[in-house]
C-alpha cells in the first residue's frame, strides 16, 4: 500500500495557510445535512464535537464514562505549551517546532509538528475566552513556567490541575452545543465496532454500559478521539477505562496502526508495592525542578534515607548529566532509574525505586515556599504512601504514561479508511518517538478546535456519500459479530478473571517491551503473549450476565483486544532495531549507553496492517523527510 500523507506543497511556514485555502468548503446551508460521530470526550473529542457543531454539523458524541467531563484528560497536571513568548526569552513558533521534532528524536513529520506549534497560540486565546482560570502574575497577565527541561518558560498552567481546567473549558463548549441541540450526547456507551459501507466509515455499534444492549449509529464520518493504550502494561498512570479497543477495532477493519512500540515511560510515579495495586499515580514532572534523585552507593544499604550521609549517596543523574542534571528528558531519566535498580541499588520494599529528595530544597527555600509549589503533590503522595516528603525523600519509579503510537493519519488527520478521522492521543501524528511534557494537551486541542473543522469539510466536499442508515446489512453484521464475541466470552466460565490475566500481560510487556528491549526478550514475549492468549480463551471467568451493568465483561472485552494488540507492539519493537526516544533497543546504544538512532534505515514511520487473527501484521513504511531541521544526536551531558 502506498501511504500518502497529503502534505501540502510549499515552504513549511506556509503549508497550513495554503492548505486551508485549497481545501474545498462546504456551503453553510449544506453543513446541517451532514452527521458526524465523535467517539471520546477528552480534550480532543470535546473540542472537536463543540467546534464541528458550531459550524452547523450534526454531531453525536459518545463516551465510556457517565459524564463527558470525566475523560482522562482531566488528570493532566503540569500544563500546556504555547509559543507565545510572553516571557521574552526568545521563544517562537519555530523554536517550539524544533524542540518538539528534536524531543521526538526525529521520528515525527515536520509539517504536522510545525502546524501544531502554529496553532498553540490560538489554543491559549480560546481557553482564556472560555474562562479557563490559568495562573497569573501580579500584574494580571498569564504566568508561564519552564517544564520538562525546556530552555524557555512556555508552559501555561492552572495550579496542578491544568488538564482538568482545559477539559472543563472544552466540556463547557460541548454542553453549550448540547443545549442548542446540535450535539447529541450518548454517555456510558462503548464503541464495539466501526461500520464501513463502500469502504467508507459510516457508523459505529456501541454497547450501552447500563443495560448491555447494542445500539447502531450511522453517520457521514466518524472521528475517533479515544485516547492512548498505556494500560497494555496494566499498571500505568492512565485511568481504569483507558483502552486500545476503539483503535484496535478500527485497525481490524482496515485502518493502519503507526509506531505501536513508541510508548512513554514517565520517570516520576509512585512505585509498585504489591499485586493489590491497580495504578501507579503520576507525581508531576515539575518536582524534578527542585528534587534531587539518588540511590545509596551500596546496594542493600538498609539505613533510613535520612541516616545515609552524602558520601554514601549516588546522585546519579547529576553525575552522569552535569549540564541537565535532574532535568534530563523523561526517557533518559527513566532508563537511568532502571539501570540503578537493575544494578541492585534500588530502594523500598521491592528494591525497585529511587529517592527524590527535597531536603536541600527545603533548606534553601524554606518549607513554606516548597509547600507553596508542591503542597498538593506532597499531600497526594502522603495520602497514598503514608510518608511525608517533607520529612523523608519520596520514592519514585518509572511507569507507563503515554503512547506516541496510534492509528496512522495523514495531514488531514484522516486514517487509511476514508471518513475515519483520528485525533488526540489516539493518533500517532506529532510526537515521534518521545513526547515532551505539556505537549499532549496542546495536540489534543489543536486537533479538535483548529484542524478537524477544516479538514473534515474538505473530505465532505470532495466525496460522494451514498445514503446509509442503520438498516444497512453492515450494521446487522457488525452487531451479530459483537454478540457472538460476547456470548463466547460469557460461555468460557473458566477460573481466572480479566484483572488476573491483565496483570500477567502487563508484566510481560513491562519486562520485555518496556524501558528497554532486545531481540531475545521480544521473541520470548511473543511466545508468552500467544500462550497467555490461548489460555485466556479457555480459562477466563466473566461473572454476571451480559445484558446488565457489568464491569467485568467490559474489562474482559478490552483485555481480549489488548492481548492481540500487544503482539503488534512486539512486532514493531522487533522491526525497529535502532534505539530512538522511548524505544531503547539494547543492541543499539552509544558507547555511553545512550540511545543510538539509525537514520539511514529507520527514518520512517512503521505502519502495520491487520492480516487476520493469529497472523503477523503486514509492515508498510512512510519515509520521513527532513528539509528544515538537521538531524542530530540528542545529548544532555
Amino acid at each position, binding site marked *: 500500500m502506498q501511504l500518502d500523507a497529503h502534505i501540502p506543497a510549499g515552504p513549511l511556514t506556509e503549508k497550513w495557510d495554503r492548505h486551508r485555502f485549497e481545501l474545498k468548503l462546504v456551503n453553510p446551508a449544506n453543513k446541517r445535512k451532514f452527521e458526524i460521530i465523535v467517539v471520546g470526550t477528552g480534550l480532543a473529542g470535546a473540542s472537536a464535537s463543540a467546534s464541528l457543531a458550531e459550524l452547523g454539523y450534526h454531531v453525536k458524541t459518545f463516551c465510556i464514562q*457517565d459524564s463527558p467531563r470525566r475523560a482522562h484528560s482531566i488528570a493532566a497536571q503540569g500544563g500546556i505549551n504555547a509559543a507565545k513568548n510572553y516571557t521574552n526569552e526568545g521563544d517562537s513558533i519555530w523554536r517550539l517546532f524544533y524542540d518538539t521534532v528534536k524531543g521526538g528524536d526525529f521520528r515525527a513529520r515536520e509539517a504536522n509538528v510545525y502546524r501544531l506549534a502554529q496553532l498553540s497560540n490560538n489554543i491559549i486565546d480560546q481557553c*482564556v475566552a472560555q*474562562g479557563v482560570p490559568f495562573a*497569573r502574575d501580579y500584574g494580571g497577565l498569564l504566568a508561564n513556567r519552564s517544564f520538562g527541561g525546556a530552555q524557555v518558560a512556555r508552559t501555561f498552567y492552572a495550579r496542578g490541575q491544568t488538564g*482538568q481546567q482545559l477539559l472543563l473549558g472544552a466540556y463547557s463548549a460541548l454542553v453549550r452545543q448540547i*443545549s442548542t441541540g446540535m450535539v447529541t450526547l450518548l454517555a456510558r456507551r462503548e464503541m464495539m465496532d466501526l461500520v464501513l459501507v463502500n469502504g467508507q466509515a459510516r457508523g459505529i455499534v456501541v454497547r450501552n454500559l447500563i443495560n448491555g444492549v447494542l445500539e447502531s449509529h450511522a453517520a457521514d464520518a466518524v472521528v475517533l478521539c479515544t485516547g492512548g493504550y498505556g494500560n497494555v502494561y496494566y499498571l500505568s498512570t492512565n485511568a481504569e477505562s483507558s483502552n486500545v479497543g476503539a483503535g484496535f477495532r478500527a485497525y481490524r477493519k482496515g485502518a493502519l496502526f503507526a509506531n505501536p512500540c513508541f510508548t512513554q515511560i514517565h520517570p516520576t510515579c509512585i512505585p509498585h508495592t504489591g499485586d*493489590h495495586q491497580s495504578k501507579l499515580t503520576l507525581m508531576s514532572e515539575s518536582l524534578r525542578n527542585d528534587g534531587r534523585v539518588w540511590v545509596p552507593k551500596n546496594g542493600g544499604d538498609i539505613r533510613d534515607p535520612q541516616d545515609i550521609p552524602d558520601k554514601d549517596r549516588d546522585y546519579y543523574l547529576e553525575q552522569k548529566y552535569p549540564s541537565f542534571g535532574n532535568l534530563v528528558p523523561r526517557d533518559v531519566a527513566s532508563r537511568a532509574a532502571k539501570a540503578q535498580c537493575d544494578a541492585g541499588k534500588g530502594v523500598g*520494599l521491592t528494591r525497585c525505586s529511587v529517592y527524590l529528595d527535597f531536603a536541600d530544597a527545603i533548606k534553601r527555600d524554606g518549607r513554606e515556599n516548597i509547600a507553596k509549589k508542591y503542597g498538593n503533590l506532597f499531600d497526594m503522595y502522603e495520602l497514598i504512601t503514608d510518608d511525608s516528603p517533607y520529612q523523608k525523600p519520596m520514592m519514585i519509579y518509572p511507569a507507563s504514561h503515554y503512547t506516541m503510537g496510534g492509528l496512522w493519519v495523514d495531514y488531514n488527520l484522516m486514517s487509511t479508511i476514508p471518513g475515519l478521522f483520528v485525533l488526540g492521543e489516539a493518533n500517532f501524528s506529532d510526537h515521534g518517538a518521545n513526547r515532551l511534557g505539556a505537549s499532549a494537551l496542546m495536540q489534543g486541542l489543536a486537533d479538535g478546535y483548529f484542524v478537524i473543522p477544516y479538514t473534515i469539510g474538505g473530505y465532505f466536499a470532495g466525496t460522494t456519500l451514498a445514503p446509509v442508515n442503520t438498516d444497512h446489512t453492515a450494521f446487522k453484521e457488525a452487531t451479530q459479530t459483537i454478540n457472538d464475541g460476547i456470548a463466547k466470552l460469557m460461555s468460557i466460565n473458566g477460573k481466572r478473571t480479566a484483572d488476573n490475566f491483565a496483570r500477567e500481560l502487563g508484566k510481560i510487556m513491562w519486562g520485555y517491551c518496556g524501558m528497554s528491549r532486545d531481540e531475545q526478550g521480544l521473541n520470548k514475549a511473543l511466545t508468552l503473549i500467544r500462550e497467555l492468549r490461548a489460555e485466556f480463551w479457555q480459562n477466563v471467568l466473566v461473572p454476571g450476565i451480559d445484558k446488565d451493568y457489568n464491569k*467485568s465483561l467490559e474489562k474482559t472485552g478490552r483485555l481480549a483486544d489488548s492481548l492481540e494488540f500487544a503482539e503488534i507492539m512486539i512486532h514493531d519493537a522487533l522491526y525497529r532495531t535502532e534505539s530512538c526516544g522511548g524505544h531503547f533497543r539494547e543492541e543499539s546504544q552509544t558507547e555511553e549507553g545512550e540511545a543510538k538512532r539509525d537514520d539511514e534505515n529507520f527514518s520512517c514511520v512503521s505502519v502495520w496492517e491487520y492480516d487476520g487473527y493469529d497472523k503477523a501484521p503486514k509492515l508498510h513504511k512512510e519515509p520521513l523527510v527532513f528539509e528544515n531541521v538537521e538531524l542530530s544526536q540528542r545529548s544532555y551531558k
Partner: protein
Amino acid sequence: MKKLPKRINLTLKIWRQQGSEKKGHFETVAARDISVHMSFIEMLDSVNEQLAMEGKDPIAFDNDCREGICGTCGAVVDGRAHGPQKATTLCQLHMRQFSDGDTIVVEPFRARAFKVLKDLVVDRSPLDKIMTAGGFISVNTGGAPDGNALPIAQEIAEKAMDAAACIGCGACVAACPSASAMLFVSGKISQLALLPQGKPEAARRALNIVKTMDVCGFGNCSNHRECENACPKELSIVNIARLNREFFKASFFSDET
C-alpha cells in the same frame, strides 16, 4: 526500611440493588486479608475478585482515574459521603483509616435527583443537565482575542480557580439533608461571575441554572453546611453566598426572565 504492610480483615455491610426498578437491601460480605496500603476501591476490587471466584455477582461501583480528579467514584461510607477522611475521594481513601475487625457500612450516594442504577452506581446525569443550562461562556472557536488582552487580577484568578476545582462527584448532594446541588452549582457560577469573560451572561446563567436545578429534583439549600464537609475538593460555601447574590441580582435587576 519499611516493614511489610499490615493486613486486616473487615466486614462490609454493603448496598445491593439489581436495578433502578428493583428494591435494594444490605448484604454482609467479608473483606479478608486487606493490605492497609490498598485504596477503598482496591479493597472493593479484591472483594469482587473473591465474589467472582465464588460464582457470585461482583459489587457494581463506578470509578476511573483512581487519583481523586475525575469525580467518578463515590459512595457513602459509615454515613459519610466519600468516607471518614476529610478532603478525600473514595479512591484516595486508604484502608489504613480502618482497623482490623471493623464493620463498614457502604451505600450509594442517595438523592431524589440521583437514581440508583445498580448497587453503588447512581445516575448523576442531572449534574450535566444543569451545566447544559448555562455552565459556559458563549464563545465559538476562533476569533478569541489574545490571551493577555484582558488582565485579570491574580487574586480574582485564584478565587476563580478555587471555585473551578469542583470534580462534579455529587458528594455535596448526597451529604445535604435536602439533596440540594447548591455547592456544585455555586462553583461554576462563581468561577464565571468572577471572571470578566463571564460577566455579560451572568444574569441569564444564574436564572437558567437555578431553574434547571429545581426541574431536576434537587432540593433547596438549608444552610446545614454538610456539603462543605463532604466536598473532597473543599469548595467553600462562600461560593453559595456568591451564587445567591448573582441570582438575586438577576431576578431583580435584569431583564432576563
